[in-house]
């Protein structure tokens, strides 16, 4: 097993804590992309607190691992992850969305310590990540590049151009997570613009495909370790997730793609998060 029991407990505690923080930030900010933030959080937690070779004291280290959050609207999860990892103080998040804040709904790499790419327009991140993976190879560097895309985001053709090049250039140092939460803005992904058979598509594009439950930290960890052993092909981890994971009234609700919370609703969200983690013994 990839994780020790201590590591598992620590990751679960971190994810739980950050879910609570996301609820508070969403309330203070007047709204956020909380649904897709909650589905994506666990993957980011496992990457940032276990696998990424990064050092908050040297955020610009040229040899650091890279992470590109292509579904940039999940900044509501990403920003607290970076803060918790020590890239900046939590206090900065008080102004999320507000005037002159470094934190809008989408991450700005020039304003946020530890952020590797400015994203928010969907369908850009995978190409940027491909460039980083090539950058590592051309400079003989060992760092790995990780990217996360939304499933709705995969409607954009640019992803498939990048997928083609990732396989063509044999970028085994590139790993992509698909946050397969099955929902976009106007409805369920398969209803608006279907992707299935998604694993077959990636395979046909020349990628190694791993399928996991993307809200299960153990499965996420195992998948990353498998991806790290790749030698020939880039790896895509199709992570089946629940949009709004941890907050019962948001789960699998398309409408919670973006939403705001008053204090009463936020309280309900906090209670739900506690219940979910209590049931898992965390």
């Amino acid at each position, binding site marked *: 097993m990839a994780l020790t029991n201590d590591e598992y407990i620590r990751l679960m505690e971190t994810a739980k804590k950050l879910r609570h923080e996301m609820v508070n930030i969403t309330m203070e*900010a*007047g*709204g956020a992309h909380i649904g897709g933030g909650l589905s994506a959080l666990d993957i980011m937690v496992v990457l940032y607190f276990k696998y990424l070779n990064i050092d908050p004291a040297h955020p610009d280290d040229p040899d650091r691992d890279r992470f590109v959050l292509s579904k*940039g609207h999940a900044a509501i999860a990403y920003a607290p992850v970076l803060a918790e990892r020590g890239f900046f103080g939590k206090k900065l998040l008080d102004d999320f*969305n*507000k*005037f*002159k*804040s*470094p*934190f*809008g*709904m*989408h991450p*700005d790499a020039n304003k946020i310590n530890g952020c590797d790419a*400015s*994203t*928010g*327009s*969907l*369908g850009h991140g995978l190409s940027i990540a491909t460039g980083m993976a090539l950058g590592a190879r051309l400079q003989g560097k060992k760092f790995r590049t990780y990217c996360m895309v939304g499933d*709705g*985001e995969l*409607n*954009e*053709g640019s992803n498939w151009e990048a997928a083609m090049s990732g396989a063509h250039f044999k970028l085994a140092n590139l790993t992509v997570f698909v946050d397969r939460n099955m929902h*976009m*803005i*106007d409805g369920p*992904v398969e209803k*608006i*613009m279907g992707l299935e058979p998604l694993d077959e598509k990636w395979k046909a594009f020349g990628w190694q495909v791993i399928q996991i439950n993307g809200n299960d930290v153990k499965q996420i960890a195992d998948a990353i370790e498998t991806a790290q052993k790749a030698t020939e092909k880039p790896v895509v981890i199709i992570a089946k997730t629940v949009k709004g994971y941890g907050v019962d009234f948001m789960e699998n609700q398309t409408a919670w793609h973006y939403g705001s919370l008053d204090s009463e609703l936020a309280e309900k969200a906090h209670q739900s998060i506690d219940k979910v983690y209590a049931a898992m013994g965390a």
Partner: protein
Amino acid sequence: MSKEITGTTWTVYDANTLTQNEIYGRVLCELGEKHPEIVGLSADLAKSTKIGIFQEKFPNRFINVGIAEQNMFGIAAGMARTGLLPFVSTMAVFASMRAAEQVRTDICYQNLNVKIIATHGGVSFGPAGTTHHATEDIAIMRSFANMTVIVPADGIETANAVRAAVDWPGPVYIRTGRGFEPNYYTTEDYGFKIGKSVEIREGTDITIIAMGITVLQAAEASDFLKKNLGLSIRVINMHTIKPLDEEAIMKAVTETRRIITFEEHNIVGGLGTAVADVIAQSGKGCAFTKVGFPDVYSEVGYPEDLYAYYKLDANGIIEKVQEVMQKDFEEDENWDDEF
């Protein structure tokens, strides 16, 4: 023409209870009744752009392509080629940049009858940051031959513009905001015509040329400065950026000899640039300043805070107008010899 297809007109009552884009969605439904050739397209933003209101009424005449703007504008071009009249809605940033080549080459080059209603223009989606701000769209769209570019002042003018677009041949780009931007107009009946600006305040000391959200702000600034400083400030609502109402601009040059433009756009390539072109080519001298985003990516923040910061609200306009009143320019009594 527009009146006979409407059935209803939109008043300030509706405009206060409906957003600019909700009015758009409803007007498109009315138009859809009379025009079976109208079809709607969006890219996973049917709800956000309010073209979803048309979708609810005409589900069989609506195509959601998923998050794929380039594909969408290509599809719209193909549909137009078969005789349909596509209305395409996504955020302004994606219509003008993600799909720019499809709009230019597939739609404008072929001079196809496609109407683009681009929402979330300027910094109306302020907290979303630069990836969702559209402060270059007017420059891009007006550089495409055959394209008509309109920035309505408010919801009521949006209703007028959308109706007028149906009868106006060729591609049209209409840029709207996002939410409850306050209205300038109280009724639709003020003679909206594509390509013809509206003088909403008379004046002789200086002319403000405004578009979009700055129209209301300019009117308020004009009223304030008249009352408090006795300044006579003409305000022009330049709702159509292309084709541009050159006559109104030249009238302002000769009659007020001071012009200031306000636009929710980069000062490079937008309304101010278009007005400057006209002035420069006329050979007439004039004090001139353009106000907008000074070739920067806007900060993050709620739109009201950003408008204040970039001097696009009434207070900012008051300040900027006073600056231009102090500005030197070469006085020349003998205007006739300048051409």
